[in-house]
């Protein structure tokens, strides 16, 4: 900058006629939407941690068979209700790597329960990348390699064994495959129904809107669980586990769409009057194109946040249904099916580890809630705290 004699200041840089004069003062205004959302979301620590936790949980699903030392329905008749085993590193003060003490069961005929005694003289070193029961790595590669397993003559029940001597730790990994997917399938069904029905009602209005509104009101006024129960009781008992799994997820989604449809509808009602919609209509765009290209992107982010908040309800729903015996059935493993074993007070008192599957349920549900909260807070990047 140069100071001229008459107290005027002039930029000494040469004048450029092509320079952008409309560049915003604030670079943030030019950043793409997702970047702004990400910057804001990053500050929501709990949401960020939850997102990472959920990402890890879902990424682990295809590798469940590899991480789990046992296959889900592998019974171990000598270790019914075995207590959780610790993994030790030091044997008599000497480091020998991860190992467990083998356990043998003796029947306590006075209290009618199994008593396990550890053999502290013969530490059994864990083996890595060892052979065990066959499973499908990534869902299609048949293999019998496991990340770790117990050597011959010992067992590794990190979180104990259930009434048939099945490893709770392994079953939780396998159970996660179903329990976590239920929410995804359910939310897909709910999304498709909610967006299309809510969108149609909001866009066309009139009698369609009236009818859809009445349907939404009726569905929202009925308690969900009894309806879920009734619908799942209608699933024929001769269907295979996979079919049952899909139909249960769809049932969970079928009753979830009204809330979403209502939100979509009210958004549509307000957006429909905007100029850009008018313009698109004048250019001859079809309703389906306007809905998809012009309306939906406007509040897609809100929909994602509300999805994050409905997934946990479905996970809890599946757990409840399976717990009551009307959801997924025995050869299938889900967290609800596992908890079915912990149904009575006796197992909670004597074998508390059979209730461990409740921990992943609680953590996943909490994580979805925090993530949803975080997303909701950060989705409108132009608003200030």
């Amino acid at each position: 900058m140069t100071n001229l004699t008459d107290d005027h200041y002039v930029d000494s840089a040469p004048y450029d006629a092509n320079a952008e004069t409309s560049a915003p003062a604030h670079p943030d205004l030019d950043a793409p939407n997702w970047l702004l959302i990400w910057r804001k979301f990053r500050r929501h620590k709990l949401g960020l941690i939850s997102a990472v936790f959920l990402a890890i949980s879902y990424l682990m699903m295809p590798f469940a068979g590899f991480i789990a030392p046992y296959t889900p329905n592998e019974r171990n008749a000598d270790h019914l209700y075995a207590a959780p085993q610790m993994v030790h590193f030091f044997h008599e003060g000497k480091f020998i790597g991860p190992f467990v003490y083998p356990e043998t069961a003796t029947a306590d005929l006075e209290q009618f329960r199994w008593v396990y005694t550890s053999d502290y003289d013969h530490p059994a070193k864990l083996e890595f990348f060892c052979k065990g029961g066959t499973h499908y790595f990534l869902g299609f590669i048949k293999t019998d390699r496991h990340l770790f397993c117990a050597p011959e003559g010992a067992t590794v029940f990190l979180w104990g064994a259930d009434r048939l001597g099945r490893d709770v730790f392994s079953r939780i990994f396998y159970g996660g495959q179903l329990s976590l997917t239920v929410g995804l399938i359910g939310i897909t069904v709910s999304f498709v129904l909610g967006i299309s029905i809510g969108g149609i009602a909001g866009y066309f209005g009139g009698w369609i809107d009236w009818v859809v509104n009445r349907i939404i009101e009726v569905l929202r006024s009925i308690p969900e669980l009894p309806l879920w129960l009734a619908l799942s009781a209608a699933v024929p008992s001769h269907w295979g586990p996979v079919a049952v799994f899909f139909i249960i997820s769809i049932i969970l989604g079928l009753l979830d769409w009204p809330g979403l449809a209502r939100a979509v509808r009210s958004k549509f009602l307000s957006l429909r009057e905007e100029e850009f919609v008018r313009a698109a209509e004048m250019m001859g765009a079809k309703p389906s194109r306007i809905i998809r290209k012009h309306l939906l992107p406007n509040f897609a982010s809100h929909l994602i946040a509300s999805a994050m908040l409905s997934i946990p309800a479905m996970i809890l729903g599946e757990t409840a249904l399976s717990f009551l015996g009307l959801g997924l059935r025995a050869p299938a493993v889900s967290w609800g099916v596992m908890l079915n074993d912990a149904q009575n007070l006796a197992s909670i008192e004597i074998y508390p580890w059979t209730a461990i599957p409740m921990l992943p349920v609680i953590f996943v549900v909490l994580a979805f809630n925090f993530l949803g909260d975080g997303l909701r807070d950060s989705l409108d990047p132009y608003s200030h705290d």
Partner: protein
Amino acid sequence: MPIIRFAVFRFFTMLMTLVVVSALVFFIMNLPPGDYLSNLIAELRSTGQESGVAKVEFLRREYSLDQPLWRQYLIWMGFYPGPHGFSGILQGDFGWSFEFDKPVSEIVGSALWLTVLVNVAAILFVYMVALPLGVLAAARSKTWVDYTSAFVGYLGLATPNFLLALMLFYYGHKYLNLPIGGLMAPEFEGEPMSAAKVKSVLLHLIIPTFVIGTSGAAAMMQRLRANLLDELSKPYVDTARAKGVPPVKAILKYPLRVAFNPFVADIGNLLPSLISGSVLVSVVLGLQTIGPALLTALKSQDQFLAGFILLFVAGLTLIGTMVSDVLLMLLDPRIRYGGRDR
């Protein structure tokens, strides 16, 4: 009186909804292939008990299960004469439970009242917990009070109801000597009301109420907190403080009243989830409500019993929602002359 007009209008919409719900329930009950009686006939035939078949065929005609589906529905509801004239739900005949071989009304009789009792207790619990905690969390926001209540609330939201029930049951019995199972001590069952019986029922209600209400209370508390925080940041609250209005009064006098509105309106969302929870918890805790009966009926395709219970549960929700709508009108003068909740 616009309030009475509104109440009457609301009542009729509720009845209409109930009719639609009844059709939906009937449809769902008939979704599974076959029904209880056909299964029974098949079973009798395969075991060679031809004599029993005649009785079942009689039942089939008696309950007009041989009619087309739409007529079955009308007869069940009492809109259309069955073999014995009009005798459907409208006339107070709830049908026959094939599973228990008794009239439905006999099975659900006392359970209906206990169901209402459990749910009313749960609603009271939700309000009694959510109101003070929500206000406290907003008034002392970003302090340990706020964080603790949020944490407990989230935990309540995330823990599956039935597990919470089992654990509270176990620990409640172990440390507080709370009774286990049922809604009253066995010696009071079928006895007339007495002070001792009431006490027994109240003691048994503690854990179920807590379990059913926790998640609802958590959600309600969060909402009240958010609303109140919005309200507290408005200039008139600053003015009040600057004028020297005592802090408690500055919160209770106006901000709370404004924030309170959604609190009542929200009962429409709260009730279905509470009733869902009560069905589940009843099954786990063995309460003599309609929950366990519903589960048995659904598993054995006992359509009249299951249908009636589903309808009752839906009716309970609809009535609760209607009451809350009318209450909202009384509470908030601004809504009174405005349009209907659209």
